[in-house]
């Protein structure tokens, strides 16, 4: 009886020692963390009007996470919430993910829902990275507050609008421009403002600005008004679902001799439309081109194609990079601290590590500026002979 008690005591003491040793090892970082599992949340519209983008983002980030997990060691788990491209649903989704103790969130996909979530995430010190929300307000509030917790792997709206205005003047030698945008879409408004401002600066005259509701299917009236002014270029900061209608309808109202200009919302348009004759000659800016000759990019395209049977679009590529940035920062945080990954201290340390990101992804080299926006080069694509062609960097 006595022997048994001693044995129990010895075993218990050994266990305590083991536990302490384990803690010490965890603090030291590296090899010991092999059983670690970190949960991250994903906010993406998998249904609804922008489901196309959401699906691409979802596939891109999961490709990276699965490849990462396959290497062994740290394992990343995801909890996905379908926010349907809806701002209030995105907030519900954020709260739900927060309650499930996620360490960080990848999302949302479009600017509206992302901007709805950011203020809450900022208060909670929740690290977030979006692959595709390009509005300036995603990382900087109207009053100038920088949301230090919010990062992105795409470039921002003002940048795109400015670039396209410069492109119109410097490359296309345009003198007059028209803008067709939606004042129900933050993304669209951001691009219009930047384009207009840059155009004014460069002496490109904006002769007519027309707008449409997000769910519009009839653009003929606006396009008729635009045709009346016969501008050199027509800038359409909108999404594929709009371009698919604006293209054919612009041909029907007799808009001729006007070059269509777009931004990254156009990504995937050629794949979506069966007949692209109506947008032939258009130029649009994007963050990713599968034509870039780089071993990492080509490997990514092969892996993506093996899984989904299609060439990854810009959203998938940026999501792949977003996951890479986040996991890279998580690894550095785990190595440097011994906080519980579900704790606020860990999240604060993770935010600091994300800000120090310095890596090369499939969309190019990424480091963040003081507003957490990546510094990148734009890719210009041209619709020629019914296909998207890599025009060059600009």
């Amino acid at each position, binding site marked *: 009886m006595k022997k048994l008690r001693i044995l129990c005591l010895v075993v218990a003491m050994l266990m305590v020692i083991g536990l302490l040793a384990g803690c010490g090892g965890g603090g030291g970082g590296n090899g010991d963390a092999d059983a670690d599992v970190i949960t991250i949340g994903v906010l993406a519209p*998998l*249904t*609804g*009007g922008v*489901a*196309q983008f959401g*699906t691409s983002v979802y596939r891109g980030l999961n490709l990276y996470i699965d490849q990462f997990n396959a290497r062994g060691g740290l394992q990343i788990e995801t909890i996905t919430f379908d926010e349907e491209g809806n701002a209030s649903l995105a907030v519900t989704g954020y709260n739900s993910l927060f309650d499930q103790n996620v360490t960080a969130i990848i999302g949302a996909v479009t600017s509206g829902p992302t901007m709805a979530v950011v203020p809450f995430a900022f208060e909670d010190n929740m690290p977030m990275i979006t692959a595709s929300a390009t509005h300036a307000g995603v990382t900087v509030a109207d009053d100038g507050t920088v949301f230090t917790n919010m990062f992105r792997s795409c470039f921002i709206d003002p940048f795109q609008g400015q670039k396209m205005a410069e492109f119109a003047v410097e490359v296309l030698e345009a003198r007059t421009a028209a803008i067709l945008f939606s*004042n129900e879409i933050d993304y669209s408004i951001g691009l219009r403002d930047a384009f207009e401002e840059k155009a004014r600066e460069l002496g490109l005259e904006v002769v007519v600005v*027309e*707008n*449409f*509701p997000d*769910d519009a*299917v*009839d653009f*003929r*009236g*606006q396009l*008729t*008004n635009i*045709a*009346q002014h016969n501008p050199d270029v027509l800038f359409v900061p909108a999404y594929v*679902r709009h371009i*698919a*209608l604006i293209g*054919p*309808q612009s*041909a*029907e*109202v*007799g808009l001729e001799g006007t070059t269509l200009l777009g931004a990254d919302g156009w990504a995937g348009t050629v794949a*979506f*439309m*069966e*007949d692209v*004759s109506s947008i032939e000659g258009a130029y649009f800016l994007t963050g990713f081109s599968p034509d870039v000759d780089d071993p990492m990019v080509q490997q990514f395209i092969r892996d993506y194609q093996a899984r989904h049977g299609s060439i990854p679009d810009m959203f998938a590529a940026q999501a792949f990079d977003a996951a890479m940035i986040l996991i890279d920062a998580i690894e550095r945080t785990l190595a440097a601290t011994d906080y519980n990954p579900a704790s606020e201290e860990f999240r604060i340390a993770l935010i600091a590590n994300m800000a120090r990101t310095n890596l090369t992804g499939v969309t190019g080299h990424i480091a963040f500026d003081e507003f957490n926006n990546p510094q990148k080069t734009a890719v210009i694509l041209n619709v020629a002979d019914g296909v998207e062609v890599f025009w060059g960097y600009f």
Partner: protein
Amino acid sequence: MFFVSHLVNGLQLGSIYALVALGYTMVYGIIKLLNFAHGDFIMVGGYIALFSLSTTFFGLPPAVAVVLTIVGCMLLAVVVEKLAYRPLRNAPRISVLITAIGVSLLLQNLAQYFFGATPMNFPTHLLIPAGGITMGDVFVAYTPLITIIAALISMVILTYLVQRTKLGKAMRAVSEDTEAAQLMGINVNTIITFTFAVGAGLAGIGALLYGAGYPRIEHTLGVMLGLMAFVAAVVGGIGSIPGAMIGGFAIGLVEALVTALGFSEWRIGAVFLILIIVLMVRPTGIMGRSMMEKV
């Protein structure tokens, strides 16, 4: 010349509204039911047309696709009427109305389940060739031209059907007084089924023209289209066939006019403003007859 372009835009949109509004008004006229699933019949028709035309799917010739779409919509309406509305023939009207909303949601969700949430591109030019005609200095594309002509022909045929045939006479009789029509030996159920089929046939034509003009097919396309057509039917006088035609064209023209004046963001608002004004000034709609409630 741009005024003419705007006019054509308005007439094209109006043609589609009118075709859809006819379906609403005919069904309402005969069983006093606002068939909220009607917009979704068009959505289904849009998918049928897309799959039968598109070369990545069946790539059928346009004539076959047109027949398939129209017949498909008619069959759908007959099935919906039989399964969802007929068992409620003697139920309170509100129950049937709620059922109609249920059918609408069911169709939308089924479409999302089978075809996905991602919109699909309608192969417009397999149905109507690209290009158009130039009259003076006005360019009119084939799509609006054919849309307007097809809608007008459909309306002429419908008017003939309702006014000049025996079936049409029976439809008018059932609409006027169901019980009396039954006593006169009219099979009311057959006539109701027939009315649903005709309305859905027009929806099928609407789906084809909608796809050609607005080549993006998605599971929610019937919602806004159905709502606007419903407004057109109410403005024209619900239950009245010429009213639905007038209402459809009026709403389409109002939208085009508001856009032409540079207030494109107000176009939907303008439509509902017209609805409010019509309901205040003439509650039964432009062509509606005032009905006395029997107490």
